[in-house]
């Protein structure tokens, strides 16, 4: 089910602005890959190029290759909608649908695509997804209430539940825990551990401990200099990255002696 992702010589643009340059990496199937790096170095941008969400922004484009299980994502005959169905995404900011209840939000991926399902089946998906996102006990008595009525952290977990409800093969998470308390964070990390038996997971985080805890491999992005495009400095197994990284600047960043 899970898929590996091969990226070669990827340049990512916003109009004429080159945001990320020359990325090469292989993301293993059924593993957790973490991206770390200073703010503005292009982690989100790169992550969004993995499921063709980048091109949603007017003028945004990509040069280079992204191969998912041997299939090139940016071939002209590839349907971005089909790509996104298999590669789900959790955003940096929680974004539940304001017109939908908690229940409908979890099912949004199915409902928006007019997938027919029985009530029992839908209930089942909602419960298991919410349990997976560690939100079930908090909301099980008010599934009919609007999703916007939840706290910021609860909204983020609702978005995670919504993303796993469609059972994507790859899950991209952009700082999913930046709005969460330690308990929910550890629940999400447990969830990531569980999910990795079936899914390929890519996570962006500013939390070094989190990267060390959850990921198998880590990529460090950085800016060459202010105004220059971001690039991938080092990509290694997490163990090696945090013990003795190949690159000096990686070590400086991880140990907090940055800049």
């Amino acid at each position: 089910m899970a898929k590996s992702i091969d990226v070669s010589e990827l340049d990512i643009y916003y109009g004429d602005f080159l945001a990320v340059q020359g990325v090469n990496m292989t993301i293993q199937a059924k593993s957790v890959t973490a991206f770390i790096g200073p703010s503005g170095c292009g982690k989100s941008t790169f992550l969004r190029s993995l499921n063709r969400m980048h091109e949603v922004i007017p003028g945004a484009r990509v040069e280079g290759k992204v191969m998912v299980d041997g299939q090139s994502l940016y071939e002209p005959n590839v349907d971005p909608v089909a790509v996104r169905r298999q590669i789900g995404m959790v955003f940096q900011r929680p974004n539940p649908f304001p017109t939908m209840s908690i229940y409908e939000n979890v099912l949004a991926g199915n409902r928006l695509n007019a997938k027919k399902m029985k009530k029992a089946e839908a209930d089942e998906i909602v419960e298991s997804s919410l349990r997976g996102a560690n939100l079930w006990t908090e909301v099980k008595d008010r599934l009919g209430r609007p999703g916007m009525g939840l706290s910021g952290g609860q909204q983020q977990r609702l978005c995670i539940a919504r993303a796993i409800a469609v059972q994507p093969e790859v899950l991209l998470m952009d700082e999913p825990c930046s709005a969460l308390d330690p308990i929910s964070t550890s629940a999400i990390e447990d969830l990531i551990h569980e999910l990795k038996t079936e899914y390929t997971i890519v996570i962006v985080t500013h939390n070094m401990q989190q990267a060390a805890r959850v990921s198998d491999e880590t990529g460090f992005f950085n800016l060459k200099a202010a105004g220059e495009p971001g690039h991938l400095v080092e990509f290694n197994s997490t163990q090696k990255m945090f013990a003795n990284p190949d690159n000096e600047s990686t070590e400086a960043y991880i140990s907090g002696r940055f800049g």
Partner: protein
Amino acid sequence: MTATLTTPPATSSTIPLTHGRLPRWAPGLVAVVAIAAAGLFPLLLGWGVVPWVIVSVIFYIGGLTLWAAVVETRRSAVDRMVTSLVWTAFAIALVPLVSLLWTVISKGLPAINSTFLTYSAFRTSLDQPVGIYHAIMGTLVITFCAAVISVPIGIFAAIYLVEYGKGNRLARGITFLVDVMTGIPSIVAGLFAFSMFTLFFGAGYRSGIGGAVALSLLMIPIVVRSTEEMLRLVPDDLREAAYALGTPKWRTITKVVLRTSLGGIITGVTLATARIIGETAPLLLIAGLTTRTNMNPFDGFMTTLPVFIYSQFQKGTPADFDLAWGTALVLVVIVLLLNIAARVIGKIFAPKTGR
């Protein structure tokens, strides 16, 4: 650096946290005094009520500001002055509205009775009562047709502008044309419809649908503009959330963007309807004038409420005036109902926050 940090800030004790406050009843007292003082002018110089009110307001604002400046701080004096000015402006804005409503209600109410609303102006004998049933129906039919033409065109145009056009040439051209259309005088819209229908169906063709076409020329730009505003209010985060779940663009638009902005769009459409329902000039040209009830917009003359009001004023006898005022009241009530409906619908479909 360290030296300034270790010495306690010398100024801290000189910044007072409290200052004098005028008592709660101060504005009331100033108002009474101002009215009384200004009352000397009508008493001594024989001024009317309007100058009295104006002088009172000036006294009030000046007095309260001065008093606040003496007792309170400069900032709260300015605050009190600007607050009073804003309230004054608000009251001035209300004057024409209230006086208009008062005139229409007081003059129109006596004309309204059951026959007024259920009979047409067509009489077979002189003792038959006259009513505006034909004009009410004409207004409803023509406005409905205009809405049926304008709403889809307007909403689809707005969807194109916001979701697909995003600043390309065609979109900028459309935006420009919509702006131009907003400024078209209604009589020109009427002439356009008139000449168009003359071209297609020969000279002298008159019907309700022609009026609806003319009105939709006026309504489309309003619908486009208001819908566009509403669609732009939908955050991109929501579109991206839907895309990331593998939702095609058209479903994202129908089920997320339109659904989220539905309340605002319906409100806009209702207000646009209220705006065109009072149009007179284009309908005089193309829909004609009749005293009979005609429910078929594709055949024959059709009279609407504003056109009926106009024709009654043309006739000029007191009885005709009474009918006209009654009709005006009915029209105002319809517009009022539309506005209330817009608010209610907007509330119902607004996204719920649940807090």
